[in-house]
């Protein structure tokens, strides 16, 4: 597949498929079907959350880094069983999908997101906004992330970050 082909129909269908992947991803999180979260990644997939400050300064540290299915599952099992936090939910909004590369079977995409967080007493806030920088591959007819880098606009996390972005 090649996104750079002049085939408009191909480009449109690819964009629709990536849009659907992103929509499935954010709804799984927002609907608290977090056990499905690791399934959006390849078995050796990588997920990280960093900040625009680190990204711009080319600093490697992340708030979260998962490599391989085990670490993804650990994030969710810890959330369910080990970590202590006040109940809250996310409402993700995702927009401005851009396909930035398409070669050797790896699709590079970029999209903006924002998250409104709601606490159990009803307090709402813009918890995060930023960019998804993704690498997507097709496995058995299904699109999966081989890499999802979350770049937060702000260095600040309010209270704690436990539900994946």
């Amino acid at each position, binding site marked *: 597949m090649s996104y750079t082909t002049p085939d408009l129909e191909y480009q449109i269908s690819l964009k629709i498929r990536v849009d659907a992947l992103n929509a499935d991803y954010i709804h799984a999180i927002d609907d608290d079907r977090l056990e499905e979260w690791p399934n959006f990644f390849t078995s050796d997939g990588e997920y990280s959350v*960093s900040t625009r*400050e*680190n990204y711009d300064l080319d*600093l490697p540290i*992340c708030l979260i880094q998962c490599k391989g299915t085990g670490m993804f599952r650990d994030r969710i099992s810890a959330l369910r069983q*080990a970590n*202590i936090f006040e109940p809250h939910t996310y409402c993700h909004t995702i927009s401005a999908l851009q396909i930035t590369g398409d070669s050797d079977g790896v699709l590079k995409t970029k999209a903006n997101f924002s998250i409104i967080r709601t606490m159990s007493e009803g307090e709402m806030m813009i918890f995060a906004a930023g960019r998804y920088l993704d690498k997507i591959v097709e496995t058995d007819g299904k699109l999966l992330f081989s890499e999802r880098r979350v770049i937060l606009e702000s260095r600040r996390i309010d209270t*704690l970050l*436990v539900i994946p972005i």
Partner: protein
Amino acid sequence: MDTIDSNSPSDFVWPCEDTSQVPFRVYTDEDLYALEQKRIFQGSVWNFLCLDCEIPKPGDYKTTYAGDTPIIVVRDENGAVNAMVNRCAHKGSLVCYKPRGNVKELTCVYHNWVYDLQGGLKAVAFRRGVGGKGGLSEEFDDRNHGLRTLRVEVFRGLIFGTFSEKTEPVSDYLGMELVAAVDRVLIKPLKVLGYYSQIFKNNWKLYVENNKDSYHASLLHVFHNTFGVVRPTMGGGIKISDSGWHHLSYTERTDISDKEIGKEKVRSKQDTYRLEDAALMEHKPELGDKVTNNIQTVFPTLVIQQILNCLAVRQLIPRGVHESELIWTILGFEDDDAEMTQHRIATNNLVGPAGFISMEDGAVGAWVQRAAKSDGEALTVMPMGGRAIEPSQGSRVTEAAVRGFWKGWRECMGI
């Protein structure tokens, strides 16, 4: 017990004999907050400002805070580190409004007043006016209109600043034992691996107490217990400076501690929890001992952290009486190879706002803040390990270091 019934901090009377109890009011009182800025942060303490390695070249600057006062830290032409309040002597605007940069001089963009890298006033725009009219009078003396400067000491790569002429050198401020603790961790030139911060919906002192409270670590943070970073039965202890102001809590991995784990009564769900991929819990000893967890506080608001191979300094900034911001600077050594850097990134999953073993610290302070504000006269009680402020060998089940913090707070505040 005295009753606190006045809104004026000058009438504030400490309601207990010692610091084993604290009135909730200290977390919620606006007047006390303002007084803390004057008497603690702008008083005789050493405020941690930033790291030496963050401003390596002449002209490099970084903006930071001492309490809630904005500060510029800059390396001058001679390589010396200077710090000044980030506030123009003219109208009070921020002089540096970017987080970092490299400059030849410090210029306030509002009216183009220019300062040298020592903070002295160098030039004023339209000093002679225009066409012989306006401008400054002859009496105006530049020497009286520099930026307010701080005394600076660079200690083991950490840059500290104080507003006081009298404060002793940093090594005396910390005391010999806690100097040795800094030397244990900061053994080589450092490099910054990254930054992030965490907003606490609580008064700054609740987070300081949380760090000095080694009693909570194995109880609140399930991961500590489950993965043997910190368990009550592990070796280690608490060191407290003679002043009581600073502390070190450390834990050593020992063979005995693994056998003892079954005897501890802790939250039941902890016993069954396991990680599928435990690579991030691997400890590559690099400091010449088996210490897995080393949390050192420097009064008032610095934490130096070694958790396994995750090194960091945490700087706490008060953001009003009900809020604070913790800036994490994650560190490696300059000579780390790519594999070690990746290992530190993996280990960093344990700490920070998303850290397996530390995220709860973001929540508990806010819970105290919310519950405490309705009754300022009520008191906390901190009886663990008696009422004294003394070190403890072999046990971290003590609140001695928290009591030490309150001793420091009272001494600075004159309360």
